[in-house]
């Protein structure tokens, strides 16, 4: 099918383009490890504080980092699409007979692959620090992170391509990122929050994804929060891919 072929061509080009700058590859791999080394020890001290969720500190912390990786790794790709648009690459590709949706899907696929590599590095490093997690749970966790990454990278491409300006895009990311970060319990679990803050955070879908991932890490796969978190991620990924494809299609309107 030409859709898959076109998607693979775009994926391959995007991947080779990323590899042409080894500095970014190294920074990309260092990032999760820095979080682990510089923030992890702080969190270990917190386990005795009332309200800290059950489980090993790493089982609480690593799922949060994974979700953060998915959200933030994806969010910034919009800058790249603005750069590509300005270089004339997007218009050039839209004149080819290639499938419009492939133009975004191939890029999203590259982002998900990068994210998966980062996530695996993160988990392996955390295992050295003392994280214990069943293998099946790990696969489930990676699937959820992949869905998150695909969602945010599509949304970011969509936003970048509709705004076509870094100056407008950067504040959007900041406005969106900070509340999501604080209200999802990524850094500190929401179970430690006062009641009003917890209610606010309940509206944030990402909190439930983090909670679901933590349950998976504890091996509690058959509790309600897990299908709930996965359901939310699936809905998000569908909405995001649809939005991204729509923005690409509407470029010619």
């Amino acid at each position, binding site marked *: 099918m*030409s859709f898959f072929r076109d998607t693979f061509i775009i994926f391959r080009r995007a991947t080779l383009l990323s590899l042409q700058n080894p500095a970014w590859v190294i920074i990309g791999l260092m990032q999760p490890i820095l979080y682990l080394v510089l923030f992890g020890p702080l969190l270990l001290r917190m386990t005795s504080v009332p309200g800290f969720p059950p489980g090993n500190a790493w089982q609480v912390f690593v799922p949060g980092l994974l979700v953060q990786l998915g959200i933030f790794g994806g969010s910034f790709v919009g800058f790249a699409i603005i750069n590509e648009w300005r270089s*004339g*690459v997007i218009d*050039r590709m839209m*004149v080819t007979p290639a499938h419009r949706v492939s133009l975004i899907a191939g890029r999203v696929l590259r982002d998900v692959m990068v994210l998966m590599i980062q996530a695996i590095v993160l988990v392996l490093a955390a295992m050295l620090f003392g994280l214990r997690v069943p293998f099946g749970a790990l696969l489930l966790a990676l699937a959820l992170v992949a869905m998150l990454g695909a969602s945010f990278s599509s949304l970011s491409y969509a936003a970048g391509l509709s705004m076509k300006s870094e100056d407008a895009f950067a504040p959007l990311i900041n406005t969106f990122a900070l509340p999501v970060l604080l209200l999802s319990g990524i850094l500190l679990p929401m179970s430690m929050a006062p009641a009003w803050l917890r209610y606010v955070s309940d509206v944030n879908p990402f909190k439930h994804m983090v909670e679901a991932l933590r349950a998976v890490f504890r091996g509690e796969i058959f509790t309600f929060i897990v299908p709930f978190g996965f359901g939310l991620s699936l809905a998000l990924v569908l909405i995001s891919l649809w939005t991204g494809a729509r923005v690409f299609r509407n470029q010619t309107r």
Partner: protein
Amino acid sequence: MLEAAKEQAIVARGLKRSYKTRTETVDAVQGIDLTVGRGEIVGFLGPNGAGKTTTLKMLCTLLEPTDGEAIVAGCDLRRDARGVKRRIGYVAQGGTTMREAKVSLEIVSQAQLYGLSRQEGERRGKALLRALDLDGIWDRPCGSLSGGQRRRLDIVMGLIHEPELVFLDEPSTGLDPQARANLWSHIRSLRDQFGTTVFLTTHYMDEADALSDRLLIIDHGRIVGEGASAELKERLSGDAITLTLRTAEDAAKSQETAGALENAANVVCEGNVVHFRVPNGASVLPGLLRKLTDLDVEPIGVEIARPTLDDVFLNLTGRSLRD
């Protein structure tokens, strides 16, 4: 549309495009009719903001027309956009490649998007680079090329699938005179070697003049003139002739004589100098001088200036292209 339209490279009828801004609707292109024959090089000339790029983008499937229809490379623009895409090449004004990407990566992926294999893309890419004097850049990042090289690379990108029709948007903007002349000769040889139809937009007179078999002149979203450069100049402007005489009295006599010439226009007398315009000045001038000799008037200076496209544009729109 007519079946005959498929014989042409482009036939457009009533092509329109309007944009909605927050406060109003702007008609960027207000109904364009045009025909481009196969193998022609047609220049689309007009000032910035006249609607050139908008028209081009519509013909290239990058922008949906608000109204009107077109047959491009034998395919209906509205019903068979994919057929159009397969048969045309498009080189945008702002370039086509990423600075960071290697030339090979951009060329091969572009070829693949047109359904060619990686090997075929490599083979054609290298051959095209050679044809455009770009040997040896295969493994270099696009950003390391000079302006002229990068522009020629853009053309390679637009030709990788051997389109029968190629659109060039402002091909030589920002290049130095030598690089421009070089680019023009490459574009011309494209048509001569492969029979490629070339449709280019430009706001440069010299580019339109040097390159095109035929010109379409656009202003305020409408086509206001059409024809070969020489023909347009002859028809719409004529040569500018300046006679310098000994006295103002002689000048007055000359003004009268010149004014009586067939098709003479804008006859003005300033002191002992007379200006006027006349088509085909070189053949009119000897006769005029003979008549003046009969009147005992002897010019001390005669100047004849060929019209420029700017004169044509001024004549068509009442303003200069450089405004």
